[in-house]
């Protein structure tokens, strides 16, 4: 069989885009409206640019230490024990994030479509499909992401245009009626809505032409930023900030208001829901793949197919954490605040600093020898 473990930088970009969007899309407009009313675009812009810079840094790490898996990267920069601990943390982080995402996916499906189907069945079915996808290596994932991104993006853009029929431009006012501190306080919200970018470090070793990764990664974040700004603006245009605060999933409610006047299907709900299933599935699958890659490195194993199935019970368990939606969201909040700050932001930053310091020393060393 040929080698299924190489993806192109653009495929990596596609994977990253779909992963991040799937995680952040549902509640972002509500959180922003709660924090800064109509000024979400400003916070998004600042937070997004910070994230883009940070993700560019992540890409830079992969570029500087190419062809090395994440364990190797951490080992060579922050020592081996740190690497082992970090890998375990990363694994737990991905499992919880994955579980939560699966839970929200299942809750929405149950609420809108399959009322009588037990949530456990929905969760298990989506996990089984995911395993089916990720068993055959990262290339399959990359190719599917490449295929699905346009399929999701084009109808979504058309739907965005349709939103304007029920919108009020003045809903975006007042502009800039906000203090500096309010913006600063809201920025973490935006940073956390880009969670999932840490997969760049995980998948970096499997990407050809690592020199192109930093730009590709940064560019992906900018693209998502653009999408988020559109989404946030669209939600405000239709609902206004007061109503947005009161909707649990403003994005879904938003797309549910779209009607195609005069067409045979007036309600585009089916289209919206299928787009959404695609997006979330393509968010669950890369996270799942990430776990397999990490587990494989932790166990120093060569083949990884057999690791896919045993992970299901773990993800399943975490997906059922929290007796109700409110509790699940509360657990996720605590989780993102502490765990993801360390895993997604802290450690990569340390790696980056360590690389820079080493380079400095190298240069100085060269200088001395001359």
């Amino acid at each position: 069989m040929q080698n299924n473990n190489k993806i192109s930088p653009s495929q990596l970009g596609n994977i990253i885009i779909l992963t991040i969007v799937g995680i952040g899309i549902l509640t972002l407009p509500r959180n922003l409206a709660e924090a800064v009313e109509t000024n979400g675009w400003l916070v998004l812009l600042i937070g997004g640019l910070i994230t883009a810079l940070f993700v560019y840094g992540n890409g830079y790490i992969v570029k500087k230490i190419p062809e090395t898996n994440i364990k190797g990267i951490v080992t060579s920069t922050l020592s081996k024990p740190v690497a082992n601990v970090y890998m375990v943390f990363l694994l737990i982080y991905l499992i919880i994030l994955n579980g939560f995402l699966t839970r929200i996916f299942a809750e929405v499906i149950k609420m809108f479509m399959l009322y009588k189907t037990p949530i456990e069945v929905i969760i298990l079915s989506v996990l089984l499909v995911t395993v089916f996808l990720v068993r055959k290596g990262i290339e399959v994932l990359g190719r599917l992401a490449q295929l699905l991104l346009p399929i999701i993006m084009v109808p979504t853009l058309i739907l965005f245009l349709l939103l304007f029929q029920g919108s009020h431009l003045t809903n975006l006012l007042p502009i800039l009626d906000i203090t500096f501190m309010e913006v600063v306080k809201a920025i973490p919200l935006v940073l956390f809505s880009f969670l999932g970018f840490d997969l760049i470090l995980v998948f970096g070793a499997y990407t050809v032409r690592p020199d192109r990764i930093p730009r590709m990664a940064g560019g992906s974040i900018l693209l998502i930023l653009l999408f988020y700004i559109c989404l946030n603006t669209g939600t405000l245009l239709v609902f206004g900030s007061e109503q947005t605060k009161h909707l649990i999933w403003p994005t879904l409610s938003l797309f549910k208001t779209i009607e195609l006047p005069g067409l045979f299907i007036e309600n585009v709900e089916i289209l919206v829901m299928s787009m959404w299933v695609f997006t979330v599935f393509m968010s669950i699958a890369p996270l799942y793949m990430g776990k397999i890659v990490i587990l494989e490195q932790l166990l120093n194993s060569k083949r990884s197919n057999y690791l896919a199935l045993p992970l299901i019970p773990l993800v399943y368990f975490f997906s059922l954490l929290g007796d109700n939606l409110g509790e699940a969201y509360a657990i996720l909040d605590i989780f993102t605040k502490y765990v993801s700050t360390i895993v997604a932001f802290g450690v990569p930053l340390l790696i980056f600093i360590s690389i820079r310091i080493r380079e400095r020393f190298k240069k100085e060393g060269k200088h001395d020898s001359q």
Partner: protein
Amino acid sequence: MTVNRRYVKVMVIFIMLSVLTGCWDSVEIDQRAFIIALGADVYEPTEEEVTLSGEGFNEELAPLMRSSRRNVESTFVFPKHMSTVTGESEVAYLTMSSIAESVYINRKQLATRTDVELYLGHLEAMLLGEAFVKDETLFREFLDAAEKEPLMSRRVSLAVVDGRAKDALNIKAKMEPNTGDLVSDLLSGTGQTDRAPITDFGRVAASLKENGNAVIPRITFSKDEIKVGGAAVIKDFHFVGWLGEIESLALNIIRNNIDSFGLNSYVENHLVPFDVTDAKTSYKLLQEDGRFVMEIEVMGEADIEQVFFMAKEDVLDPEYVKKVERAASGAVEQILEHTIGVAQGELETDVIHFEDYIKKFKPKLWKEIKEDWDTIFPNIETKVNVNIKIRRVGLAR
């Protein structure tokens, strides 16, 4: 052999996946009743029923079933396939009512009398009885339930019936046998009138969240007709009164909800109706020594629809057209000023959305006056300035 067996296995899985997907929730389409219109009223028991209700009543379940609060009588309109003697099926529109503590329980109760599943996904119109809207508890409970329902669209039409919603839904309208469809077509779509607020459930809910105020279209009905016109005015979730048809028209103009409308003017003893197209309204808030003055400016183009057969006046005479323009502007000014007066005086409710304007365009000022808005609004001075230009005059002079 092995290849074949593998192929069979894959095919079996594939067929099972594609055929059995969603079976858990499968409902045959003729087993599902698509509720088109929903009416909610306060249930007023007759004296006979009040005395009867004590009998056969389970004391243990009493706290769950009944308290001092009033019950809801919901009416559901849905089409259903009826089999006839010849075996062919025909569609009938059924109207069924049920009495319970909430609309949700109503639906559950109705299941004891229907052989189909009641489905809200295609709901088009919700009608609330006058007494129902006047009961703040029931009204707010209803709004929340409607907003929480995942199947319902936020674009469902919402209206308040002058009378009981059940009676309105039970009439045999000559326009259309399906009352639910008729109501939703009247409230939205091409047959929409400009003499009732242009809105839907989602927008009413958003408006109520903003400040507790909203206008909801009014429905009146006779034995065989249903009419949409006028509006119910809600302040702090309380019903405070009705707006008439012309007042609703004026409100639509002030709030920039419509581009075109028709009105009468009088020019030199002749009645001159005109048809306005492209009406645009803009606001300006001025502060004159502590008082607030709101300048409302309406710009529009209009056509003359009628003057007088063989009249002395000539519609091609620019002087005469100027006169009509002045009269038309005056007529619009008059209805706008009247409506603002009603909102500030009788209703004391900011249905005009001055609040919205100040919030959006003068956020700093809004923060200062937010607390006292209820006392400030009735005292805001308004200057209405309408500028209508006559563009076309018809085919005859």
